[in-house]
């Protein structure tokens, strides 16, 4: 049967239009955000490349040469300080010996070994009493750590001959 009564075109509900536009806006926003991210990423890549380039340029050959020179000088200063700290002065021994050797004792051989702080002396004196006095003087010295008397003998003229090994206090060479 023919429908003679015309029908009204069905109108979409207002909330449908609102939802449509909101959805459209969300889509546009998503597309815009994606486009923005693409742009930001390309900018970030360029920035990164620029920074890498700048990092490569820092430390030119001249600056690296300067760096080597500074480190070499630093090493020399430190080495110098170490050597100077270890520097020893054997000349200090002579006035010390002159002050402790008995006037009636004559030394004939002298051998100083700095590595061992050891002094080997050969000498002679008038008699055992003088030698005893000499040993007493040596024993009383703070700069002598150990005394080794050896090869004690009586010489042709009746004098006493001997060898003395002295282990010295390293402070004497400072």
């Amino acid at each position: 049967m023919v429908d003679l009564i015309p029908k009204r075109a069905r109108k979409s509900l207002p909330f449908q239009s609102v939802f449509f536009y909101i959805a459209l806006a969300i889509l546009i926003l998503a597309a815009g955000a994606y486009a923005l991210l693409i742009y930001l990423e390309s900018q970030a890549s360029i920035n990164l490349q620029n920074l890498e380039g700048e990092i490569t340029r820092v430390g030119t050959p001249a600056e690296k040469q300067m760096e080597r020179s500074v480190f070499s000088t630093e090493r020399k200063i430190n080495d110098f300080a170490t050597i100077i700290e270890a520097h020893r002065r054997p000349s200090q021994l002579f006035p010390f010996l002159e002050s402790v050797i008995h006037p009636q004792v004559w030394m004939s051989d002298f051998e100083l070994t700095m590595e061992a702080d050891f002094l080997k002396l050969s000498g002679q004196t008038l008699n055992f009493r003088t030698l005893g006095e000499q040993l007493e003087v040596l024993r009383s010295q703070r700069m002598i750590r150990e005394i080794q008397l050896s090869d004690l003998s009586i010489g042709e003229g009746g004098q006493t001959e001997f060898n003395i090994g002295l282990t010295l206090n390293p402070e004497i060479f400072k």
Partner: protein
Amino acid sequence: MSKIYLAIAFIVAALLVGGVLAWPKYQSLSTLNEGIKAKELELQSKTDYFNHIRKVSEQLEEYQESLSKINSALPDDALLPSTFNYLQNAASQAGLILEEVAVGSAGVFDQTQASAAKPAEGQIKTITLNLSLVGSYASLKSFISEIENSARIIEVRKIAFSSPEEDEEEDIFSFSIDVVTHNY
């Protein structure tokens, strides 16, 4: 198509754009930004480092005199001829005759003593010189004091001498002295 279906299609498309395209891009951008921060720090630290080196270098320029003394004390090579010359002059000034200089062992400086190990790059090398001298005891003392205070660091390692024989001139001794010089 009704608007409601289109709206749903937009939402789905937006979710796809966001989830499949934008989110990975965002993560990639975050990684890049972290990389940029790290590179900025690296650049800053490198720049600061070389600025510091430049300042130190400028400060060292002010101590050229002291540095040249250190260079003399610790030269880059053994400089044996100039060392021999110095020893000969020092002996002569002290009143000794330098009869012989023999080059002894080479080694490496360590704080305790020089060892005979083979020197590595940058290590301080040592050369032992054996000196034979003739003169008086007073001259020996003067010579030892002189070399102790020389610009070139010279370490005395051994001193040996004997009293002159009866037929020899009195007060004239023969000395044997081992000294060590340092260089790079």
